[in-house]
């Protein structure tokens, strides 16, 4: 009988923090820009330059640490990690090894297998490296230090995950938490969230840990899932053949759906960490900790409870709305402004989601203001416009954030409530479409629909279709 294997996975997640400036200098963290435009002596390792810590980095790190249930280290220090590579201008990275900012936390995930707690070993602050651009013409690489010194936190989980599904659930949970804190946008494609997967396999039922590999270069959830499956299989095959898994770092190639070992004799992996003498300890007292706790925004799990209580929204709807912080923010404001939380939820879940999908956008990209959505809802609720007009107006709100009240007036989209005027239009429709009239009179109920349609068209949509039907029946 074939042996059963268990996959053991731990993650190292790097998250770029949403500060305006870099971790140790006053350069902008703005993405893009000409090569080396956002650089200075500090983030390019010029001789004599010295780092000074950005306070906001510590605040974000504390906020994330607290949100993932970590203990915040009261005296935290920075260490140098020494290794030579050109994207690292000092040839050491300022990181934290001995006293990281946060330790011993967890997040709860939910998968088909139920709820599970994934423990977090530690989280530390560090600086990002620059970027290497490979120049195919000259067979050289070009170094751009714009990203050098952008603040990161690295969140190191315990090896508590057993499947790609759990990994994705953990990452989604982590991402939502961090997005809610406003500490990062966590975009895998753009690299503001980067995931290294530590994976080993062992025979089911044993406790003996297998040798693990570290997988890098995973740029999407799909790539992560594929890499986990491929690496699991690769390791099992090795073991089945009686060979050993090497402890090594591997690079995932998502196009080829395979990985290869990143090894060189020059890579000793002996980082000679020692406390950075250029930086002083970060001491966090009760007062500072309490202030960060108090400033902590409401997280998703808290919102889910509140939405039920405050807005009487079903859990499944609340989950959909809160899957993005942006969506949740718009919902809450709209609900208050229009006084109709259910309608607000509906507009977001149906029309907004449809348009986002159509335009290939993320909820984070929503650009319209809650005030304008609220106005639209009020117009519809009051019967000032009918539902199909409302949908058309919403497309304008979605695309250009127009003021619906003004737009409805300017475009003359109000529903006509003057019954006399309506009757005049209907008599003309009856006169102009004798066929439909006779069909209806001959018992074809469906013909009424055609007549309503004609009337609506004649009214340029600005009528209540129910009222039109009622009057038609009367007049026929």
């Amino acid at each position, binding site marked *: 009988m074939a042996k059963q294997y268990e996959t053991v996975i731990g993650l190292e997640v790097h998250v770029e923090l949403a500060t305006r400036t870099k971790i140790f200098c006053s350069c902008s963290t703005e993405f893009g820009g000409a090569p080396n435009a*956002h650089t200075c002596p500090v983030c390019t390792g010029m001789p004599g330059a010295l780092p000074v810590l950005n306070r906001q980095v510590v605040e974000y790190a504390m906020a994330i640490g607290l949100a993932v249930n970590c203990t915040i280290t009261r005296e935290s220090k920075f260490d140098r990690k020494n290794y030579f590579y050109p994207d690292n201008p000092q040839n050491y990275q300022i990181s934290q090894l001995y006293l990281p900012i946060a330790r011993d936390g967890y997040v709860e995930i939910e998968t088909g297998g139920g709820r599970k707690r994934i423990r977090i070993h530690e989280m530390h602050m560090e600086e990002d490296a620059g970027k290497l651009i490979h120049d195919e013409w000259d067979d050289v690489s070009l170094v751009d230090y714009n990203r050098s010194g952008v603040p990161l936190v690295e969140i190191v989980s315990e090896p508590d995950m057993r499947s790609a599904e759990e990994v994705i659930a953990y990452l989604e949970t982590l991402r939502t938490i961090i997005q809610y804190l406003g500490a990062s946008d966590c975009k895998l494609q753009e690299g503001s969230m980067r995931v290294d997967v530590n994976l080993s396999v062992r025979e089911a039922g044993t406790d003996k840990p297998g040798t693990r590999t570290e997988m890098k270069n995973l740029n999407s959830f799909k790539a992560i899932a594929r890499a986990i499956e491929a690496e699991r299989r690769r390791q099992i095959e090795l073991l089945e053949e009686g060979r050993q898994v090497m402890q090594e770092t591997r690079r995932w190639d998502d196009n080829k759906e395979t990985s290869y070992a990143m090894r060189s004799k020059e890579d000793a992996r002996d980082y000679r960490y020692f406390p950075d003498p250029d930086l002083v300890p970060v*001491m966090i007292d009760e007062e500072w900790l309490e202030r960060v706790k108090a400033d902590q925004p409401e997280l998703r799990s808290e919102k889910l409870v509140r939405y039920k209580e405050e807005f009487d929204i079903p859990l499944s709807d609340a989950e959909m709305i809160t899957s993005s912080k942006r969506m949740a923010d718009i919902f809450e404001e709209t609900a208050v402004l229009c006084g109709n939380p259910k309608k607000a939820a509906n507009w977001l879940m149906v029309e907004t989601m449809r348009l986002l999908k159509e335009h290939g956008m993320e909820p984070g990209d929503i650009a319209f203001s809650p005030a304008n959505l609220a106005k639209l809802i009020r117009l519809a609720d009051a019967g000032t416009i009918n539902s199909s007009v409302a949908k058309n107006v919403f497309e304008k709100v979605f695309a250009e954030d127009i003021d619906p009240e003004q737009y409805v007036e300017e475009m003359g989209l109000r529903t006509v409530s003057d019954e006399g005027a309506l009757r005049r239009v209907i008599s003309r429709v009856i006169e102009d479409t004798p066929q439909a009239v006779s069909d209806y009179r001959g018992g074809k109920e469906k013909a009424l629909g055609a007549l309503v349609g004609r009337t609506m068209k004649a009214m340029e949509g600005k009528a209540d279709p129910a009222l039109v039907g009622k009057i038609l029946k009367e007049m026929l």
Partner: protein
Amino acid sequence: MADRISDETIEYIGILSKLELGGTEKEAAKADMEQMLEYIDTLNGLDTEGIEPMTHAFPIYNVFRNDVVENGDESARTLANAPVQKEGGFVVPKTIG
């Protein structure tokens, strides 16, 4: 403790520190380092049980900057001393083959 610095050790330190010593230089480095380490071993004569390692001589802590952008485009200065540059970047031998 003699012969703590073998050829392999010197080779390994060379990889860590990106220095490559030739024959006589290497022998001299081995001897120098051996001598220094023996001397440094005098520290073992001192009981440091229960002593906290001291990085900074004085207790300074919580030195921060505010998160305000102050630097503009300094690429020209950054590149001013580059041994080789191209298209605004520093040129290095190809890093991934």
